[in-house]
């Protein structure tokens, strides 16, 4: 009997801790499949961050380091400078990458650090129980914005894919979502492109993945996917924001 589907070799057999309906598992699977397809599981070092992504080091089969909150891009920088020929990626949520770790991600991108940031944006702090993130939508209720996020008080949501795209060292950012089979397939293509560009030495790459947090959004898994499409996507438009690899090729 032919095997038509199996667990990627890029993942360990450790049972994941994610809540039902959470899309972190999907993103893990996509990254693992890309590592397998590029045949780089044995030559990749990943960096787990703090948040629901903290245990990523248990799930990926490649070598892993666990970083302090927000510091994954700095840790990844240290790794890449020691091992310039290995693939290095960070796996970060929106609290980690877009709040406490803003300086580290901006400067890793500015330096054109040859790493790939896998950025799961679910517009909330998941692990700590649903607090407001810099990505939380205006009006969205959280445990620290019980009246809903207000522009006057908290400012407006931060768009990292667009922001980093302005930096010369950042050669590729794309925002995708993991909401249905078509968008998941597209997300995988983006991740594969980011790793491929990294391995070609082009520069810093990031894929922002709009993802769900049914637990802290207070929705069922199915409702959460609908909420993502109806609310997150209008605020965080999908698409490619930086793709400078070809440009670089042309000016070489």
């Amino acid at each position, binding site marked *: 009997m032919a095997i038509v589907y199996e667990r990627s070799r890029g993942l360990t057999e450790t049972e994941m801790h994610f809540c039902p309906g959470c899309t972190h598992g999907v993103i893990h699977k996509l990254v693992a499949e890309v590592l397998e397809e590029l045949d780089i*599981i044995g*030559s990749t070092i990943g960096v787990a961050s703090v948040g629901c992504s903290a*245990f990523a080091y248990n799930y990926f089969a490649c*070598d892993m380091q666990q970083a302090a909150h927000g510091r994954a891009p700095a*840790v990844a920088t*240290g790794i890449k400078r*020691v091992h310039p020929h290995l693939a290095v990626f960070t796996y970060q949520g929106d609290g980690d990458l877009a709040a406490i770790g803003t300086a580290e991600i901006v*400067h890793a991108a500015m330096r054109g650090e040859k790493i790939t940031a896998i950025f799961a944006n679910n517009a909330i702090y998941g692990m700590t129980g649903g607090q407001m993130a810099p990505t939380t939508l205006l009006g969205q209720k959280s445990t620290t914005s019980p009246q809903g996020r207000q522009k006057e008080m908290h400012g407006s949501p931060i768009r990292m894919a667009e922001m980093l795209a302005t930096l010369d060292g950042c050669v590729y950012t794309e925002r995708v979502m993991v909401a249905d089979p078509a968008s998941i397939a597209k997300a995988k293509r983006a991740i594969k492109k980011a790793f491929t560009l990294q391995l070609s030495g082009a520069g810093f790459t990031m894929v922002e993945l709009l993802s769900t947090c049914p637990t802290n959004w207070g929705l069922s898994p199915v409702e959460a996917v609908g909420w993502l499409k109806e609310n997150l996507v209008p605020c965080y438009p999908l698409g490619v924001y930086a793709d400078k690899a070809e440009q670089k090729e042309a000016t070489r």
Partner: protein
Amino acid sequence: MAKELWKGNEAVAEAAIRAGCRFFFGYPITPQNEIPEYFSRHMPEHDGVFLQAESEVAAINMAYGAAGCGARVMTSSSSPGISLKQEGISYMAGAELPVVIVNMMRGGPGLGSIAPAQSDYFQATRGGGNGDYRTVVLAPATIQEMTDLTQEAFDIADIYRIPVLIVADGMIGQMMEAVEWKQPKPRKLPKKSWATDGTKGKREHNIISSLFIDPKDCTLHNHRLQQKHDLITQHEIRFEEYLTDDAEILFVAYGTTARICQAAVLRLREAGVKAGVFRPISLWPFPEKELYDCANRAGVKAVLCAEMSMGQMIDDVKIALGGSKSVHFFGTGGGTFPTPAELTKAAQDALEGV
């Protein structure tokens, strides 16, 4: 080998390169800027990496990543910058990463002054970061000793998988002294089979982490760390005694202050007062037993702890002496030195009080 004239900050960087350090991550802060500047000039000659980070926070975490790959890594800063590195140092201690960190101390608290001080003793020896952890803390008094200890620091870090701090001050960093480059005694270093360098499909994945979510696991981890700390305490204590054999007044001081105490000792001896200096070189592990033995010799009438702080090491001196001797104190805080005259008078006052 011939002696060469070296500036302290440059000497510690050169010593690190000679010890095989090929990765340095730093951020500018006075009075240690010659350290990153030296690395920026000379790392390329050794196919090494110097990287100026966006902050001390980033620099220490870059060092974490590189150390997790098994590389010999250094970062340096001065007091306020070392404060920013405390999170990273705690994570390194938890993940058991060998890293050497230099602190050219300046006056504090806060932005303080840029002049030499010893007011980060608590931070260095008590751990400025969270959790039950220790870092080895080495405090040289001369540039020669700093270069010798730098090699030692990398070896200790590798042997025990622990961050090692070299704490000096703006004076040792900024002044120039004769240095003789010594061939270090080779120590047996363990293989870094734990490092993340790619599984190559030949082994299970390696994980560098300080996270032990199950409290039972975290407790075991803490007990294991404590066993390591005990081992270090057994094997890595360093100290020096200066004219202590017949001393009736015993100075206890480290680093720059110990040198000034030595000048005071000579003045006192000229005046017929037998004085000596006990100088801890390892601030952690602190030479408790050695200090106790020295201070409890028959002739010692009084102990005088001198620091360029308002009194921090004195806590360890009191713990070591366990009430067996009264401990006097002379300190200057914020970036000024005690003078030999001040220390001489403080010693005479202490003896008069006996």
